[in-house]
Every structure is written in structure tokens, then in C-alpha cells.
């Protein structure tokens, strides 16, 4: 594996480039750039940032995500951003944020990235980007993390994680951020029908054998249909089961500690 990295622009270049990306947007109107922060999500909440603000970390050191700290520290290799947006119903936010993250990833990695319900971005079965959405005070904090430059991951994450670099994309983190600003804006602007269709086109869960956690206990089976507005149709050994979206989560890999369905990289 090559140690040569695509040249990265310095932080001094970020404000202007991000402002330029936001200037073409309706839903992202200003960018707050932080040299280093524990969590863009916590910063956005604590600062009371209003809808239209994107909080971007040049480095995020302690983002929240169930896959452990190594994943959560972007260490100048990943990107972390929290978009503060006007409130919408949960299923709309889930669909739009997932489509935005996957679309940005596909700008650099072609057709490989897709969506693992409800809102992980995966490629080749490994997680490339994560989304964490928190609704609070009549606004929603849409946190998106993307693995960009990582050439390897700690042992416990390696089987489950990938990056744009590992997918063969040579890119600057700043370009990925700019693409994400544009794709998030487009996803918020799209009609419900369009976003629903796009989401289903990007689905990477159908056909896979998946273990879910439900109020009735664990359910395992081959996923036959994913409807982000309603739920999942799963072929279990005992026959087909419908799992409502609101009370179903994907069971984490056995090696990873869990806390309900909590996930994401911010």
C-alpha cells in the first residue's frame, strides 16, 4: 500500500473554500470552522448555532460513535461536520442525511458506496461514513463523519471500516467537505418522492443476512425489502417478518459493545 497521500490543503485554505461551497446553498448559509474540537455535535448544541450553520472540525478528537474512540478521532484523516437544520420528521431526516452522505462519497468513490439502513454509508460491506441526528429545540443537528485518508484501522475496527483512500479515491478532505455541503443542501431541497426513490436506489441491505434487535428480541434473516418510511421485510427461518422502522435497529457486530442502536461518528 502506498504511503503517498493525495496533497492536502492547509487549514488556512478551508474558510474560503467552505464559504464558497455554502454560498451556492439554501440550507447551509454559514460555516464555523474549528481547528480542533471534541465533538462538532456537542459544539453545535452548546453554542446554540441556528439552522443554516455548519460546524466543521479540522480535527475532531472525541466524536460519539459506538465503534470506539479510534473511529471517533478524525486525526486529520476523516472529516466531521454537524449541519444545523430546521426540524423535520425523523424518517425524513434519516433518509435525507443518509442520501447526502452517500452521494458525497460517490463523488469520489464511484458506485461502491451505498446505504445500510437506516443511515450508515457502506462500501463492500464496510462502514465508510456514519450519521448521527439529534433533534433538539426545534432544530436538528445532523452529524456526518466520513473516513477519507485512513490507510488502515485499529484491529477491532479493521473488519468493519473502510475509507475513500482504501477505495482508491485520491482526494483532499476539503473537497469531500465541500461535496458534502452541496449534497446535504440538495438532499434537503429534494421532494419527498425524489429522496425516497434515491434512498431505495442506494440501498445495500437487501439480499443480506442481517441480525436485528426488536422489542420482541433479536430477529435474524435475509432482508427482502427496505422501506425507510415504514420498515423492513425480512425472510426469517420461521417465515417473513415485517419489522417497523421506529423500533428496529441493526445488531452490532459481536465484537463491538453496544448501546441500543446508537451509532455515528460525531
Amino acid at each position, binding site marked *: 500500500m502506498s504511503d503517498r497521500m493525495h496533497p492536502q490543503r492547509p487549514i488556512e485554505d478551508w474558510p474560503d473554500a467552505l464559504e464558497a461551497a455554502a454560498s451556492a446553498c439554501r440550507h447551509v448559509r454559514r460555516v464555523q470552522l474549528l481547528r480542533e474540537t471534541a465533538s462538532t455535535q456537542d459544539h453545535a448544541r452548546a453554542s446554540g448555532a441556528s439552522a443554516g450553520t455548519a460546524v466543521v472540525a479540522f480535527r475532531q478528537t472525541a466524536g460519539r460513535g459506538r465503534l470506539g474512540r479510534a473511529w471517533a478521532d478524525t486525526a486529520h484523516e476523516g472529516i466531521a461536520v454537524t449541519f444545523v437544520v430546521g426540524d423535520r420528521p*425523523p*424518517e425524513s431526516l*434519516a433518509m435525507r442525511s443518509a442520501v447526502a452522505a452517500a452521494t458525497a462519497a460517490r463523488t469520489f468513490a464511484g458506485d461502491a458506496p451505498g446505504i445500510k439502513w437506516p*443511515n450508515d454509508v457502506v462500501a463492500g460491506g464496510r462502514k465508510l461514513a456514519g450519521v448521527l441526528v439529534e433533534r433538539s*429545540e426545534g432544530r436538528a443537528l445532523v452529524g456526518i463523519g466520513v473516513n477519507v485518508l485512513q490507510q488502515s484501522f485499529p484491529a477491532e475496527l479493521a473488519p468493519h471500516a473502510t475509507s475513500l483512500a482504501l477505495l482508491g479515491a485520491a482526494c483532499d478532505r476539503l473537497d469531500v467537505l465541500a461535496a458534502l455541503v452541496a449534497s446535504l443542501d440538495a438532499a434537503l431541497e429534494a421532494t419527498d418522492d425524489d429522496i425516497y426513490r434515491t434512498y431505495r436506489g442506494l440501498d445495500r441491505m437487501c439480499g443480506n443476512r442481517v441480525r436485528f434487535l426488536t422489542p420482541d428480541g433479536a430477529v435474524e434473516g435475509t432482508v427482502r425489502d427496505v422501506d425507510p418510511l415504514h420498515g423492513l421485510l425480512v425472510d426469517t427461518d420461521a*417465515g417473513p417478518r415485517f419489522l*417497523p422502522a421506529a423500533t428496529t435497529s441493526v445488531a452490532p457486530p459481536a465484537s463491538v459493545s453496544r448501546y441500543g442502536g*446508537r451509532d455515528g461518528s460525531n
Partner: protein
Amino acid sequence: MIDIRKLKELVRLMTASDLTELDLRDKDEQVTIRRASPQVAPQVIHAPAVVHHAAPAATPAPAAPAAAAPAKPAADEGLVAIESPMVGTFYASPSPDKPPFVAVGAQVGPNSVVCLVEAMKIFNEIKAERSGTIVKMMVQSGQAVEFGQPLFMIKPS
């Protein structure tokens, strides 16, 4: 369960927002409210829900084991429920390594966040909506909750 208080609130919201029809359903029940015009009183159709979900060829899921019957607030104790505004998973703390938002005995105000309800990895902050003292926690962290299910009982101040 949709009780009369909730129904009144829905009617009030419909009138305020000029909605003419509202269709609500959950596992057990379906409620349809229609208004012909702002001058006519809302008409309520209340029927058991026939279809819980529309899924091609899905067999019905087994009933949830001993689903906690939404406990009604004990009016004689003067307690009021903080109810879940949505279906999802209840979390008492902001993250697993943090203390709960509130404990029994805590004083809360209308804007105090008391818990999170998560659905599809969207975490929704739930507020007390009134001032008082938390007297009882009705559900455990990680438990699935229904629309309108009491999450906490509070003694209003």
C-alpha cells in the same frame, strides 16, 4: 390508547391549523377526525385498526410479550405523566457513559430535557413541558415505547 384529553388536543390543533382531516393509527386503534368547515364541529370516527402496517406477504409479528399497559396517571395523587410523543426506544441518559438526564426527586422545568427517544438513529430530546418533581420513571433505558406512553410521572409544582 387515545384518551379524551389527547383527542381534545388533536381537535384543538386541527382547528388552529385549519386541517380538515386527520388519520392516526397505532397497533390497537385507529382514529379519523374530519372537519367539514371551520363552523362545523369535528366528527370523530373511532374504530379498531384493521391494518397495522402494509407489507407484502408479511405474516403478522407475534404480539409483544406482556407489553406494558400504559399506566394511567393516578389522578388522586395529583401526578401527571410525561408521555412519549413518538414510537421509538427510550434512553435515560445522553450516552451510555453519562448519568441520566433526571432522577427520581429531580426538579424539572418546562424546558428540562428528561430523556431521549430514538427511532432510526434519530435521537429526539423529550422535555418535561411543565414544572414539577420527578416522582417515578415508568420505563427503563433501552425499552421500546409507544406513542403516548407515560415515561415519567411528575408532581406539578
